């Protein structure tokens, strides 16, 4: 009779959801009763098998969440930030344009210089021949 009552309280006992009096009652009964102790061990086994394995979602979810979070932060930027960002993008674009433009120009000048140098070398060779 007592065992039946204790068995009904075991899960709440493991959860710490009993009153002080009930906890003492279960505790002292478990010390004396082998069958209820076995029941308790079995219950713990069941509980740990439910808890044992946390599953890992695939990485693509984290990637998607990061992407959506970033987009959401851009959308929700304060109003005064948006023109600032547009201005920064424009400046970066212009700096890039000027920098790469110069590189291209420099490349062309270098090629031209080499061309003139070659012509000069050839003419020097001709002079040496004569």
């Amino acid at each position, binding site marked *: 009779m007592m065992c039946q009552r204790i068995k009904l309280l075991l*899960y709440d006992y493991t*959860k710490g*959801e009993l009153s002080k009096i009930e906890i003492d009652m279960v505790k002292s009964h478990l010390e004396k009763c082998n069958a209820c102790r076995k029941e308790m*061990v079995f219950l713990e086994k069941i509980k740990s*098998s*439910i808890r*044992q394995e946390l*599953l890992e979602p695939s990485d693509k*979810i984290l990637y998607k969440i990061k992407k959506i979070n970033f987009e*959401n932060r851009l959308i929700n930027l304060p109003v005064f930030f948006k023109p600032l960002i547009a201005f920064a993008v424009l400046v970066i674009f212009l700096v890039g344009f000027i920098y790469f433009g110069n590189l291209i120009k420099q490349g062309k000048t270098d090629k031209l210089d080499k061309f003139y140098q070659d012509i000069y070398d050839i003419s020097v060779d001709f002079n040496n021949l004569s």
Partner: protein
Amino acid sequence: MPERVNIEELYKAYSRMVYTIAYRIVKNKADAEDITQDVFIKLIQIQDSLRRQNLKTFIYKITVNKSIDRLRNKKMQTVKNEDIKEELPKKKDSNENNIILNLLMEKIDIEQRIPILLSEIGGFSYKEISEILETNIGTIKSRINRGINTLKQMAKEEIDDDVSEN
């Protein structure tokens, strides 16, 4: 000004638990991943109004609601128990006993399974579970106890006696 909740931090802390609970409810990896994603997208959408207190309860509430919605939409409640029975491994060492117990867990009625999962995986108290499921504590308590008793009963039939005695 209240501290803003960092979604990536939340993802690191809760994604596994959210995914596990969702998977154990809908029993399908693709659906569980969709639910996990939906939960965190929802959190992103309401990021500014999120407060650290009760956050865990809130996340689980969304997870459970989305999982139940998914179940309803797909009418998955009719997942056949016979199939689960067929999947039970023949040999029963301690690892396989865990597998058996997990499979048996899936046979428990959804009304009992959800509070048990919240209790064991989420580590919630009866009061918190009653808040998540918007059901009174007495009902939650009786559902969990009924579920656990059914599980114990089925497990005793399935698993060798030595497990219950070790």
